[in-house]
């Protein structure tokens, strides 16, 4: 016996969640299993499609227009631009992200003081867009070394943003420890919890706004590191806007990231509503196949092997960072099904000497047919009931192109759709 479903999705990142959601919406009985919590909490929470061409040109203004110029092996070419649009509209349907009113990339300031081209952004980042010409005040927090507001402001000015930007560092009100977690700030603001300011108790939102008001001049927008609440982030932002008298936005941060966490929550909520089942916490370590069909995969829990069977499987385990692809000194391999990954024999060919050079490891991943089934070295299908989505796919460098989210959403959508169709 085994735990059964029509479609089993392996991986809980953006690609896995999208494919599970699509397959469930198509009527399949879907189960998603993820070794650890979703990688989305490591992500900025921005959703990009294509920010730069593979040749490094950009920022790209219209990502859809630029897709048709990509090389044939690029995942966007495999699924086609129209399908990317469909997939993005499903994403828009289940989140409250902005940016869907136009094909043009938005320019969002980052915590490093750069400007990132992105197709979608959380509502909380909307007032911060670099295309807006209103002046900006950035607020840093003394204990939060990840966001040095004056430094970020200087970088943004050097990048030529069309507004004046100034950074101020304040102390977060209350007696927080120097190494307070982002969730501590968020929880205090979510609950408007009491903090002590000069011996008097105040709500954290009011106390924070008052400190900002002592340093704000005439700026019409005020940016904070992304700590403005978790469950009640819209209410936190609204309260601060009212008390400060300016628009408030969050600047996306590095890991761990609250915008990533919020995106994770809204996608899992949508998955729950679609009727799919899911679990996290333990890895898939083995599988049984009958010829070129996968019959069962095994989840390992402290030595126990829990069989999970499905008609169709989707591999959305991530790339080199997500451990969907592993490497050692001799080999690059995909650890669950050992799908073929094309790579040079000499490991010195895997990278370029220049840090920002053209690294071939960045494009390592499985190659697929047009329905996203992984291919062997001789271009035959690895397994007839296995599809791959997201960064486990090869042929593109999402870091350089700024295409990670879009490829995950588009290929997840197609893998989910095809798997559900086959499972019927």
């Amino acid at each position, binding site marked *: 016996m085994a735990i059964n479903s029509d479609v089993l999705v392996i991986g809980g990142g953006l690609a896995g969640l999208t494919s599970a959601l699509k397959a469930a919406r198509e009527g399949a009985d879907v189960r998603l299993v993820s070794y650890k919590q979703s990688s989305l909490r490591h992500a900025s929470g921005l959703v990009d499609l294509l920010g730069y061409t593979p040749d490094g040109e950009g920022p790209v203004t219209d990502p859809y227009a630029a897709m048709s110029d990509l090389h044939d092996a690029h995942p966007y070419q495999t699924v086609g631009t129209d399908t990317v649009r469909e997939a993005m509209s499903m994403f828009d349907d289940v989140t409250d992200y902005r940016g869907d009113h136009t094909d043009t990339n938005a320019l969002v300031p980052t915590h490093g003081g750069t400007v990132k081209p992105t197709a979608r952004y959380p509502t909380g980042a909307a007032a911060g867009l670099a295309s807006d010409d209103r002046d900006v005040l950035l607020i840093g927090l003394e204990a939060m070394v990840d966001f040095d507001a004056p430094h970020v402001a200087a970088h943004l000015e050097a990048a030529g943003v069309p507004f004046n930007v100034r950074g101020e560092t304040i102390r977060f009100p209350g007696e927080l420890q120097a190494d307070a977690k982002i969730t501590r700030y968020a929880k205090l603001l979510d609950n408007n919890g009491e903090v002590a300011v000069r011996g008097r108790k105040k709500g954290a939102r009011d106390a924070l706004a008052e400190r900002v008001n002592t340093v704000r001049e005439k700026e019409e927008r005020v940016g904070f590191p992304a700590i403005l609440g978790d469950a009640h982030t819209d209410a936190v932002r609204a309260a601060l806007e009212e008390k400060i008298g300016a628009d408030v936005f969050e600047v996306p941060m590095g890991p761990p990231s609250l915008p990533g966490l919020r995106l994770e929550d809204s996608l899992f909520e949508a998955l729950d509503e679609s009727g799919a089942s899911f679990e996290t916490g333990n890895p898939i370590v083995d599988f049984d196949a009958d010829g070129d069909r996968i019959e069962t995969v095994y989840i390992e*829990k402290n030595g126990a092997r829990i069989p999970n069977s499905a008609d169709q499987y989707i591999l959305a385990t991530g790339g080199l960072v997500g451990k969907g692809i592993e490497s050692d000194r001799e080999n690059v391999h995909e650890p669950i099904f050992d799908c073929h990954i094309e790579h040079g024999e000499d490991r010195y060919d895997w990278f370029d000497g220049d840090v920002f050079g053209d690294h071939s490891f960045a494009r390592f991943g499985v190659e697929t047919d047009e329905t996203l089934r992984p291919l062997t070295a001789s271009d035959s299908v690895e397994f007839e009931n296995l599809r791959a989505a997201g960064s486990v796919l090869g042929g593109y460098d999402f870091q350089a192109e700024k295409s990670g989210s879009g490829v995950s959403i588009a290929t997840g959508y197609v893998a989910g759709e095809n798997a559900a169709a086959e499972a019927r």
Partner: protein
Amino acid sequence: MSDAQSPTDFDPVEPNTGHDFEPVDVFPDSNDFDLRPGADSCFKCSVCDTNCPVAEVDDDFPGPKFQGPEQWRLKQSDDDYEIDDSVMSCSNCMRCDNACPSGVPLSQMHNTARGEYVEEQMDKLSIEYIRNRILANYRTSATIASKVPGLANWGMNFGPARWLMEKTLGVTKEREFPEFASETFRDWWAARGGADASRRNAQQSRERMGLDRDADKKVAYFHGCYSNYNSPNVGQAMVRVFEHYGYEVVAPEQKCSGTPMFANGMLKDARRHAEVNVSSMSDLVDQGYDAIASCTSCSMALRQEYPELFDIDGIEKVASNTFESLEYLRIHEDIKEDIQETDVSGELAEEFAYHAPCHARNQGLERQSVELFRDLDGVGIEDVGESCSGISGTYGWKEEKYEKSMEIGEEMFEHMEHAEGDVGMTECPTCASQMEHGTGYEIRHPLELLEAALVK
């Protein structure tokens, strides 16, 4: 050009040819667990910290990344390093394990550090030590109390006595002690005819199911303390549901799983109990039994904490053959289909506000009750979210932790109140008591609903 390609005189085959060197003793004490690979795997992404329910509310708690890999490194580089006393504020919810993308064994590090702190740094005559030892050894108090349940139920919740306990021992007076049952699970089990009766019931079910009368379906029930002394109805439901599916049940000799002992750094106590549990369970595993727990903290202890913390003969075998009750049926029976084809009426035809215990999460069990019972006619079930309930076994019983415990639980209470209906559901007995304490709801166990649905 890359530096890696530039020629050096470093020879990887014989790296120290011609040089004298001091060998570094990487494993100074062979009885200690070597946690270095785990510490080395940590790249300080801090995602574990975002999972910590205590760090969200406690401004003195530095979080799991510090408690685990960072403290471990400090300890290795400085012989005089003492474990930071903040490790006693970790509630051992173990949520950080599930967060780490690099597989750092965070809770193992915390348990090890806490054990060392209690053993070597804590004053054994301090009120805190005595209080923690009493709380951790709940089984001892429960054994005594269950001899005179009526008196115990009255005395343990007698106002002046509770005031005195808070003042002298630091056990909060805000909570009501769990009620002791008039008949323990084991008394019920023995009076019912023990394993022989269970075999007969299982054989009848097998005949009904069209299976071989002597089919090899047998499980050893690890009921733990709570199902024995406080909620024998859960244990009884487990027995009836498993017998319904043709399993013969045995209830072997057992002690506390150790969960409250791990959380209080009482590793010697935990080991003493674990030795009994592993010994009786491993014999049964050899005879073809699987170990089944109805409490997710008990199954967590047998599966993960035992092999991570102790080296006892048979421990790995027990870990790899232990399952949570519902999980086991999901693997081996068509329980999903059976649930879809039946319905529940009467006392349990309710809307349930379900809370997944933290210890269910690492076992991948946080969704199974919701996903199973949402297909059951006659009932509704709603997941009240990811928040920890805040009690974490003995944590919320400590006077100085009570308010933090309620602050952690606030999100769950709110979601429970927003959910339809006013009956709660969870697998964990201490989460259940926190749910009841925060909302006044009656709390049921999934096995009780399963029994109502399947065993007519």
